[in-house]
C-alpha cells in the first residue's frame, strides 16, 4: 500500500505521453498541476466546464469544446472542436516496451478490409484466392439505403472472405483479408 501511494505521487509529478494513431508523441510533465511542462516549456492549459454542461479548453484566448468519446484502460478517443483524435497514454517505460515489442513482431504483409459502416452485404464480387488490384470492387454493402461499393486499397490476393451475401455487419467488422503482393 505504502509503495502504491509512492507510485501515485511520482505519476502525478512525472511524465505521461499521449501517442497518436499516426505515432506522434505528445509528452506532458505534471499533467495535474497548474503549470504543465510541454516540449520543455511551462504552459498553462485551462480546462473548464460551462454552465450549459460543455467542457472546453481555453488556449490562446480561444475556446475549444471537448469530450472523451471513448476510453478503455489507456486508450482514449477525444473529440475536440468537432474532430476526434485517438491516443494511447503511455509512461516513458511503457512506451519503450511497446516500441521494443513492435520491432520484434516484424511487419505483416496482409491487410484487412473492415466495414466502414454498419449495413448488409448485398453482393460479394470476388472469391478467395482471386487476385485484386487497388481500387477494384470487392463487395457491395448496403447502408442507409445506399449501395456502397467497398474496394481494395492494395494490390494482392484475397486470403479470406469473412462474410457472405445477406450477412449483416457492424462497423469495423472484418470483411476481407488480402495478402499484399
Amino acid at each position, binding site marked *: 500500500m505504502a509503495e502504491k501511494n509512492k507510485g501515485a505521487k511520482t505519476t502525478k509529478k512525472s511524465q505521461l505521453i499521449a501517442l497518436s494513431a499516426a505515432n506522434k508523441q505528445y509528452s506532458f510533465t505534471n499533467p495535474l498541476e497548474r503549470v504543465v511542462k510541454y516540449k520543455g516549456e511551462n504552459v498553462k492549459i485551462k480546462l473548464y466546464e460551462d454552465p450549459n454542461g460543455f467542457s472546453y479548453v481555453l488556449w490562446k484566448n480561444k475556446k475549444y469544446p471537448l469530450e472523451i468519446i471513448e476510453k478503455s484502460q489507456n486508450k482514449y478517443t*477525444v473529440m475536440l472542436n468537432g474532430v476526434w483524435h485517438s491516443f494511447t497514454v503511455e509512461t516513458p517505460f511503457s512506451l519503450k516496451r511497446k516500441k521494443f515489442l513492435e520491432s520484434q513482431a516484424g511487419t505483416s504483409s496482409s491487410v484487412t478490409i473492415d466495414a466502414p459502416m454498419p449495413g448488409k452485404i448485398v453482393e460479394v464480387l470476388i472469391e478467395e484466392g482471386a487476385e485484386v488490384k487497388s481500387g477494384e470492387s470487392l463487395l457491395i454493402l448496403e447502408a442507409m439505403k445506399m449501395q456502397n461499393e467497398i474496394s481494395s486499397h492494395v494490390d494482392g490476393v484475397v486470403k479470406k472472405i469473412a462474410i457472405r451475401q445477406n450477412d449483416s455487419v457492424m462497423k469495423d467488422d472484418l470483411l476481407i483479408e488480402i495478402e499484399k503482393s
Partner: protein
Amino acid sequence: MKIKSILIANRGEIAIRIMRTAKQMGIETYAIKTAKEPTAWYLDEADHIIDFTECLSDTPEFLDIERIIYTVKDNKIDAVHPGYGFLAENPVFARRCEEEKINFIGPSSEVIYNMGNKTVAKDLARKYNVPLLRGSKGTLLNADYARRMANIIGYPVILKAAAGGGGRGMRVATNEAEVERMYHLASKESAKAFNDPSMFIEKYVAEPRHIEFQILADKHGNTIHLGERECSIQRKHQKLLEESPSPALDPELRKKMGEAAINIAKAVGYYSAGTVEFLLDADKNFYFMEMNTRIQVEHPVTEMVTGIDLIEQMIRIAQGEKLRISQEEVRLEGHAIEFRINAEDVQSGFSPSLGTIEKISWPEGENIRVDTGVRDGSVITPYFDSMIAKLIVYGESRDKVLQDSTNAIRKSWIKGTKTTLSFCRAVLQNGNFRKGNFNTSFLSSELKIHYHSEPDEEMLAAFFAVYDYARDLEEAEGKKLNVDKGKNITPWLLNKRLR
C-alpha cells in the same frame, strides 16, 4: 378556400419549419407521432398530435398513404404539407388527396408524375427547346442495351434511375466494361429505393456545377423565379452546403437560366414552389436535369436573399391566391450559405453516427438562422435521415458571409455525437472554395482531407487524454476515502475549484 388546419406529414426540422409559418398565418397544425421517436421536438411545436405509435402495417408511418388520408378526414383537417422526402413527390399520395378533396400543399398529382419520371420531364424540356444532355430518349430495356447506347453517346456516361433522386440509383461508367456492372448496381438500388428498376443513360459531364432555380407559380398561370442556388458541394450526389447567389452566374446568365426554368414550369402547368435543376459546364453551357416538385432542404438560402417565405407562398398558392410578386419585383440582395449538419463521422467516410445529443448550442445573431429538429437530449435513430440541422449565414457579400460563417461554425457546439461541422470548417478553409472556384468534383479532387483541425488541436486533445488518465490513476491509487464520491465527480468540477 382558406386553409384553417394543416397536417404535416413529416418530422424533424422541416416539420418545425412548416409549423412556424403556419402559426404565423393563424393555421392550426397537426403532427404525426411515431414509436421511433416519441419525444422528438417537432411534436412539442404542434397544436395537435396524431398518434401513429401503434404499428398497423409494415409501411413506415410517413409513407402510409391510406392511414394519413384517413387521419386527415377523421380529424377534418383542411390540408396536408408533405415537406421533403417521404410522400412529397409521390403522385399516388397527391392523387388520393385530390380524390378525397384534401388540399395537398404542392403541385397536382399529374405534374408530380410527369416530373418524377425523368424521361417524361426530358421529353417536355426538349419540346420547349431547353438544352439537354445527349442520352437515351426513354428508359433502357436491359444492360446490353445500356452498353450499346453508351458506345453511341461516348464515355463517360451516367446511368440514372428513372424514378431516382437524392443520389440513389446513379452510377458513372468510364468504359464499356463497366457499363453492365454499373447498370445492375444502379438498377438494383433503384428497385429497392423507389420500387422501380428502370434506368436511363446520358452523357456524363465530368466536372459540372449543380445550379438550381427556385420557381413560384400560382394556379392562375403566373410563374416567377427567385434566383438560383449553387449546390455543387456534394458527396456522392448528396448536397452538403448550398448558397445563393452562385459565384458562377452573372445577371445575363441568371436571366437566361431563369427563363428556361420558368418555361419548363409553364410547360407542365406547374403550381406551388418547385425547383428546376441544371448542370453548368466549365464553358457556362447549361443543361436541364430535372424538376423537383417539393420544398427543398436548401430553401432557406433563397428566403434569406429574397426575403420571401416559401412555405407561406406554398400555402397561399394552395388556397388559390394569386402571386403578389412579379418577376420585376423579385430582388436578390446579399448572400447566404447553408451548412448541412449531419450526424455523421466525417473521419470514417461520413458513416452514420447514432446516439444521444447530450448538449447542443448554436451561435446567435441577426444574420444567422438555424433550422433544426434536435435539442439537448434528442436521440439520433437509424430510422431517419442523418441531417439534424441547417446553419444558414446571411450577409451583404460572399466575403462577409465566409468570414461570419467561420465564427458561426466555431460557436456551434454539439456534444454526444459526431457531426459534419468539421467538414464545414474544411470547406471554409479551402482557397478555391473561398474564391468561388469549384464544381461537383470538389470533394473528390480538391478537398483531400474532409475535416479541418487547427495546428494545436491534436496537442490539446492529447493533453486532455493525459490529464484524464493521470486523474484516474490518482483516484485509483491515492484517494481510497473518496472512492464513492469520486465516481460522480468529473475532473472538471475539481478543476474549477482548483483554478
